């Protein structure tokens, strides 16, 4: 099978997205969607917590083993930030699931590639189910389903878009890992993160791109970057 394994050879699909301008109004729209069912004060405060966490993700936390991070917050509860992150991930997974369902039905693929796409579609659906469960476990309400609008015109276009989506998804999970408070939610997010990375690697291979566009250390993407990238696919 064809491979493009040269580190320097491939363009970086996510990098192309990173140059997109950040749009505060679109971000608000997306977050409103994500937080729709979390509930007024909780949603607002959870996003505040989330933004604060984003800003300090590189800051080293205390090394004392006795400290228990964020056991209580004034409003929205200790889980508010995690609920926001889970619903953010859930929304991305909704978009992925819908995309692959459309692709699988498109008739553009056959054989092993169609089989791979079916497998990925099923896995994205499992991620949706797990994240819904996680939102409920945290005491939140899963974000409402989003139906994206993805162009599905040719096999080459779909393969390219799928690679963009998967690399973006992997960087989105990576960008949130250090913001998650609940260890069980973190474990779930990590378990999904590496599967998105696997999808990304294989789709890059199909596109003759490097399996590791960022080299030895994958780059995270923050929420604003991800939102700018998915903006064209939102309803």
């Amino acid at each position, binding site marked *: 099978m064809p491979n493009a394994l040269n580190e320097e050879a491939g363009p970086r699909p996510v990098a192309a997205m990173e140059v997109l301008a950040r749009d505060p109004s679109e971000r608000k729209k997306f977050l409103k969607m994500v937080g729709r069912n979390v509930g007024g004060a909780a949603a607002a405060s959870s996003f505040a917590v989330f933004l604060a966490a984003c800003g300090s993700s590189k800051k080293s936390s205390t090394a004392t083993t006795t400290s228990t991070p964020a056991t209580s917050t004034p409003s929205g509860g200790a889980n508010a930030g995690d609920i926001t992150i889970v619903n953010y991930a859930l929304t991305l997974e909704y978009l992925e699931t819908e995309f692959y369902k459309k692709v699988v039905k498109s008739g553009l693929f056959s054989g092993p590639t169609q089989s791979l796409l079916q497998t990925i579609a099923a896995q994205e659906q499992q991620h949706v189910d797990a994240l819904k469960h996680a939102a409920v476990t945290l005491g939140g309400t899963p974000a409402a389903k989003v139906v994206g609008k993805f162009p599905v015109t040719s096999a080459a276009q779909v393969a390219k878009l799928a690679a963009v989506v998967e690399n973006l998804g992997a960087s989105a999970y*990576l960008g949130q890992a250090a913001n998650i408070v609940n260890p069980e939610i973190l474990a779930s997010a990590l378990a999904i993160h590496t599967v998105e990375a696997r999808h990304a690697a294989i789709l890059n291979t199909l596109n003759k791109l490097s399996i590791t566009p960022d080299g030895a250390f994958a780059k995270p993407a923050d929420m604003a970057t991800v939102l700018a990238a998915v903006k064209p696919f939102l309803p």
Partner: protein
Amino acid sequence: MADSTFAVPDLAAVEVHGTTREAFLVRGALAAVAVAGVGAAGPFVNQAFGASTPSATGDLGILNFALTLEYLESYFYNTVAKTAGLSGEAKSLAALIAGHEAAHVAGLTAAIKGAGGTPVTSPKFKFPASTKTQKGFLALASVLENTGVSAYNGQGPLLMSKAILATAGQIVQVEARHAAAINYMIGLSPTPAKGGGAFDTPLSKAAVLKAVTPLLA
């Protein structure tokens, strides 16, 4: 190819016979998936870590554990690969990964020093004769990469430092990409063997060390 062929027998054995609390948790979780199906994967991850607390050895212990695994991988791709008779795409892939694993060793060494710790030195490694062939080399590469992913994912929630967690995440994503590429190259599913492959199974430190111990001289 069926997911069931993407087996890691060594690790499965460790999980079944392990006597540590973590091994017990993992075994119970896998049993839950076996009985309840792939829908239990999310809860099973939660179950595996639900009762765990940050490791007593702390972040430095976890980093040194990760460093040891990276020493092993780096040796495998930088040294063992030279006698594996690799050619074509396999050779290119091994060369690409060799550079990454060496960078992970350097990155973890710096992280340990940055956190005020002392990096462990590299153990000596012993690889089976099967790695003298490309087929055998790639088969073991698949085991190592997939084990590495599970190891990082297993330790992630036990890290206290968010900065170190972020770095570990950057590394594990690359390990997952390696695992997928190697699996794909040798005709295995690029996603995990368990259940529907939608979740990477986390492994305890003890389980991973048992899996790689035969390779430590």
